[in-house]
């Protein structure tokens, strides 16, 4: 029983990280109508930028995280302005392939700059707390609290602000949004701010939980897409639930499968969803 609870804790931590990535993928798909394959590498970028501040310069981790978040958003906006914006009127598949290219560029630049080897934020090894037989790392508390704050902020943004509502409207129907007079370029820019910022946070949390390598984000892209599809692509709330479901399912799979099969869980979920419920588990439209 305690094993299952322990795996649930790991699953929720992983699920929160996947959810942060999946929200961006889902919103970007809803608004720009293409699968953003560079999202994983945007996560990696955020994680390495945090490493520059917190690891190399030795600044406090929260400050490093905040700076990395802002810089990742700036890079996301710059990529959109220089590359994706020129391709908005073309077929979505062209945007998809250009995002493949961006993914390769980001990953290669990161590898050139930092090398292929593992790096860590902090050399001090934090000792896990034991709560009723459960082992909980302080990093896990940081990750869960950070994720909860970001999700709450996202919720307030989407429900209470004019731009957030316009973002949901545009994810519902981009053509109607344009006809209504919504400033679609402004909404797109905000989508990159939200998507890029959450991707950076997800990357930093993942690096904190595991280890930082240039393929960090690329390897979690599959679960991120699985979560977005599970929640109904275009639906940010579905993406959060999808992320938690994928994270928990992945960790619980080790009860009856060798851990090397963990990545296969997300893959099986994607295939099953696309076969039986391509519109997502959460019925929306």
């Amino acid at each position, binding site marked *: 029983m305690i094993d299952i609870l322990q795996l649930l804790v790991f699953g929720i931590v992983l699920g929160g990280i996947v959810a942060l990535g999946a929200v961006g993928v889902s919103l970007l798909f809803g608004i720009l109508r293409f699968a953003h394959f560079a999202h994983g590498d945007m996560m990696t970028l955020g994680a390495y930028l945090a490493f520059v501040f917190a690891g190399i310069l030795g600044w406090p981790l929260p400050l490093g995280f905040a700076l990395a978040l802002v810089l990742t958003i700036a890079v996301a906006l710059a990529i959109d302005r220089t590359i994706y914006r020129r391709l908005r009127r073309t077929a979505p598949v062209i945007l998809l392939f250009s995002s493949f290219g961006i993914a390769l560029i980001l990953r290669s630049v990161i590898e050139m700059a930092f090398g292929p080897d593992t790096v860590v934020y902090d050399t001090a090894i934090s000792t896990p707390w034991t709560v009723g037989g459960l082992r909980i790392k302080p990093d896990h508390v940081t990750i869960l609290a950070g994720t909860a704050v970001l999700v709450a902020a996202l919720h307030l943004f989407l429900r209470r602000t*004019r731009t957030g509502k316009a973002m949901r409207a545009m994810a519902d129907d981009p053509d109607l*949004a344009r006809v209504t*007079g919504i*400033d679609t370029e402004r909404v797109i820019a905000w989508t990159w701010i939200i998507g890029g910022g959450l991707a950076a946070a997800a990357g930093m949390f993942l690096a904190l939980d595991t280890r930082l390598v240039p393929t960090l984000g690329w390897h979690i892209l599959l679960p991120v897409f699985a979560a977005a599809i599970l929640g109904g692509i275009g639906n940010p709330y579905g993406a959060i639930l999808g992320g938690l479901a994928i994270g928990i399912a992945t960790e619980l799979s080790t009860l009856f499968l060798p851990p090397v099969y963990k990545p296969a869980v997300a893959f099986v979920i994607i295939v099953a969803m696309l076969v039986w419920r391509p519109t997502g588990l959460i019925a*929306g439209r």
Partner: protein
Amino acid sequence: MNMLAVDGIHGGYGEVDILHGANLSVAADEIVVIVGPNGAGKSTLMKAVFGLVAVRRGEVRFDGADITNAATATLVARGLAYVPQERNVFPTLTVTENLEMGAYLRRDDIGPDLERVWSVFPDLHARRKQPAGEMSGGQRQMVAIARALMSRPRLLLLDEPTAGLSPKYVDEIFARIADIRAGGTAVLMVEQNARRALHAADRGVVLVLGETRFADTGAALLANREVAAAFLGGARG
């Protein structure tokens, strides 16, 4: 003085033009209806006015200013609003949020406008927190029209507002359109229910094969035997 003047426009979606010399005009206090057989280009003409279909020849003027092929956001700012025939609400947004999106370009207080919508559409007030996608077709049409009014347009473009609705809602829509005009907003509409629409309209335009064939008052078009026989399903008055 005409608020909207469409002068001999040609245009369409791809290589082939659908409109071949369409004309119409709307004055500031008028209801004008576009009728004609299926495939005549009625909806295309409406979209061309709103900059959603490329106009290759001819001119669209609003308040005397050339708005041919203008960006839709600038048209909303000028005082036009458009309600598409289908997919005209944001399904996951609540009724209130749909209305707020209609007022996206406004920076002033929209409270009085919301109050007015609730008084005109009491049904919507009861369902204001419900996602628009969960409502019936007739209610969605009300939401769509109310949303368009939130930008305080001076000209409202309605594309087949009664298509597929029950008689009860058709009556309701026509009553609301009369209210909207009484409130100072001109209406240009495409309507498949041609006889009914011409009765409600000040003037009508008969569009055939992308070209304006007749343009007259609603009553005159209804009395015109040629129009009645060819486009209104018989000569009954």
